């Protein structure tokens, strides 16, 4: 049946991704103790963003999906960032 278009990801690749994710988790926790001031949130969010990118592209197979789907997923995150920005601008200049 030609219906199965999903790419098969090897066990080894999946385990490697998990190791990277665990390392990034460790990094997030240790960064908090460094007192980077206002940058702590930024660093934590950047690491979380990187982690979710790894989950989305590998575990959720987005790397091998159609361009349409990848653009759709990206647009959801763009939409969310726009909403956050507009809301914060509203709060800042009220």
């Amino acid at each position, binding site marked *: *049946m030609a*219906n*199965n*278009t*999903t790419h*098969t*990801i*090897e*066990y080894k690749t*999946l*385990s490697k*991704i*998990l190791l990277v*994710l*665990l390392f990034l*988790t460790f990094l*997030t*926790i240790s960064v*908090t103790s460094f*007192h*980077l001031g206002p940058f*702590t949130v930024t660093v*934590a*969010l950047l*690491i*979380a963003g990187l*982690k*979710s990118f790894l*989950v*989305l592209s*590998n*575990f*959720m*197979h987005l790397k091998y999906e*159609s361009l349409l*789907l990848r653009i*759709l*997923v990206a647009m*959801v995150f763009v*939409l*969310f960032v726009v*909403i*956050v920005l507009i*809301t*914060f601008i509203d*709060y800042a200049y009220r």
Partner: protein
Amino acid sequence: MSEKAIHVEEHRDDEASKLGMWLFIFTELLLFGGLFLVYSIFRAQYPTAFHQSSLELSVTIGAINTVILLFSSMTIAMALTAIQKNDQKRALIFIGITLFCAAAFLVNKYFEWGHKIEHGLYPGSALMPLLDRGHLLYFSLYFFMTGLHALHIIIGMTLLIVCLFKVKSKNINDHDYVLLENGALYWHLVDLIWIFLFPLMYLIS
């Protein structure tokens, strides 16, 4: 037409099923996105109260739960790999491990919440209105967001249990596995939300 001809013409569109699941995941992302927006606005307004309140949470339990969810996310992805390779036995084991991790996560959550509730800290308790606004907002958001997340864990578990039985009865096989694929997508979503919840709730400096 013979029965065989009908079978050949059976219509299935895995691509569309997956797209449908993704559209549903988008609504879930924006649901939690809205909550994260509320969280960030109030955190910007009450930074010290949010920091003090977050010290009440155990980073160790949060970190353990993060590891559990990341690991289970890998095992469910492995279950899909196994079914694609027509390895029914391994697929069952991987789904089983994922379900075990999900249960372990909920047990941790039970103890974490139980500890708070013992100290009279839960929505609607007598203590909550006595807190100042920043602390009250933090704990309300904490209970609502982790509670909604835990509800998603339970829904994901239900979906994966269905998948487990369908793999067992060979209704999910190496030719037709879109249900397991969608179940796995849902489970990854649960993991994805926790990736943001953990640093935002537990690690505030």
